[in-house]
């Protein structure tokens, strides 16, 4: 088999074409918003938001409503709920996240367990079903993705300041809390969009891993975002090919590809790679 047929053969299937488009969009989107998740140390929060979607999806499913809307409502409620809990100062933010995260996940499982086809549905939500992506899903992903990216572009300055130097943000009288909530909602939107591709369980990896890889390779935010997007999209495509040829779960293959790239950067990045560092020290 030549390399060309290797690459084109899977694309003969409609579900693979749609899957490819979906992973490229989701990979790019997660990777770009993921830069803020990494830089602001919000990885745990991203994970919590992802799991918080579960009860929303379950309720929407039970009510025969739109799954995406249910997921979105749940994510926003939890995002703002974490803020309310920790703002009172009674408990620290990571504790608040831990509580909301477990509660939402349990509620989600409890609701889904009332459905007959429980096991299959739960697997799809937890680990994604990229090959089941329909044309409407693609449009929705594209539209929500554009909204997220446009917001990031418009608020670039403000997000940069609240992330790098909260003190300057305060002296400039930026509404830090509002901006933070906007960012949380963008993350929630991204997670919802990624639901079908990589699932609740793996979306946090797509938020964190490409961005962390890019962080090792560059020292400027716009470059980091571009590299991260590239890594996210590439991981998506490569993961999908892997899943096609060696017949493994596609979400897992995508995340493992991204992890492999991260390991390469961790070892060999020109500035921070441990291999070069070790060589310099000798």
């Amino acid at each position: 088999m030549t390399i060309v047929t290797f690459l084109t053969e899977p694309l003969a299937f409609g579900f693979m074409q749609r899957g490819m488009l979906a992973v490229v969009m989701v990979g790019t989107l997660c990777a770009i918003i993921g830069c803020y998740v990494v830089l602001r140390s919000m990885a745990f929060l991203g994970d919590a938001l992802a799991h918080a979607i579960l009860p929303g999806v379950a309720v929407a499913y039970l009510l025969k409503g739109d799954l995406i809307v249910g997921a979105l409502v749940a994510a926003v409620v939890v995002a703002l709920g974490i803020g309310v809990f920790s703002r009172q100062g009674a408990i620290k933010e990571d504790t608040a996240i831990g509580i909301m995260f477990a509660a939402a996940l349990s509620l989600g499982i409890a609701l889904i367990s009332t459905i007959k086809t429980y096991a299959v549905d739960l697997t799809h939500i937890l680990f994604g079903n990229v090959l089941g992506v329909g044309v409407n899903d693609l449009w929705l992903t594209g539209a929500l993705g554009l909204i997220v990216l446009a917001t990031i572009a418009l608020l670039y300055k403000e997000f940069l300041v609240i992330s790098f130097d909260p003190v300057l943000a305060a002296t400039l009288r930026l509404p830090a809390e509002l901006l933070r909530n906007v960012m949380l909602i963008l993350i929630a939107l991204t997670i919802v969009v990624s639901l079908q591709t990589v699932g609740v369980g793996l979306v946090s990896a797509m938020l964190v891993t490409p961005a962390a890889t890019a962080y090792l390779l560059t020292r400027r935010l716009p470059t980091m975002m571009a590299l991260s997007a590239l890594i996210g999209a590439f991981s998506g495509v490569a993961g999908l090919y892997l899943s096609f040829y060696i017949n493994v779960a596609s979400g897992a293959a995508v995340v493992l590809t991204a992890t492999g790239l991260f390991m390469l950067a961790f070892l060999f990045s020109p500035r921070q790679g441990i291999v070069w560092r070790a060589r310099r020290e000798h």
Partner: protein
Amino acid sequence: MFSMGKTSMTATSRTVRCAPVDQEPARLEIENVSVAYNSQPALRDLTFHVPHGARVAVVGPNGAGKSTLFKALVGLLPLRQGRVLIHGLPLGHHLDCIAYVPQREEVDWRFPVTVEDVVMMGRYGRLGWLRRPGPGDRAVVARSLEQMSIAPLARAPIGELSGGQQQRAFLARALAQEPHILLMDEPFTGVDASTQEATLALLDQLQTQCVTVMVSTHDLNMASARFEQVLLLNRRLIAFGSPAQVFTPQNLGEAFGSHVLFMEGAIVVDECCPPDETLQVQRL
């Protein structure tokens, strides 16, 4: 060592565009201000007026509330009571006109931004929402970098700079803000001598532009030699005036308590930290 008399003479002989300190109406007015930090009262009932273009050293022992005062002035900490007026208007009306250079520990140095990016942030207040920096902003940034002699480092990641260079980058950012009032928290601590000199040169230059500057410092000699006015704090205002008026045995005793040793012809102020300035001698 220096004599107090000489210091106050150099202060009056420095001719700048600003009206003399005693004739110009106060433009930064702090009235009955109390501030709490982590629900502990940190500053009580502060009242003082800083004239436009004045250069004030803020001194006091560790925990005297120097940083707290600055944070309250930029709105980072809420006022328990009292009010702060800038050009006659309460805090919040002058977004762009107050710049604050925080202590070095308060920034995430591993963040992926270049020196130029950091200095450009100084323009954000003037730009407002949704607008991108233009050629005018880039010119101001270039000039600020030039002024702090870090233009060659413009594209370097902020985390790769030395401590002194990082401080210069933050001073350049404060310059790019084109402030009316500049607050600097301990700019002389933990930096090399050339950065100290560059900072002092910047202060001179800002004075010719009528920028009001308040600098907190542990260095009482520096406060006395390089500043026209000194604000002595220890959770409350102990004294505010020229170095000669402020640095009296009685005031220093009130501020530093048992850390002051009165010897014949000299006062020794002993502070536990920072380590490089354990002992400071003030000759009377």
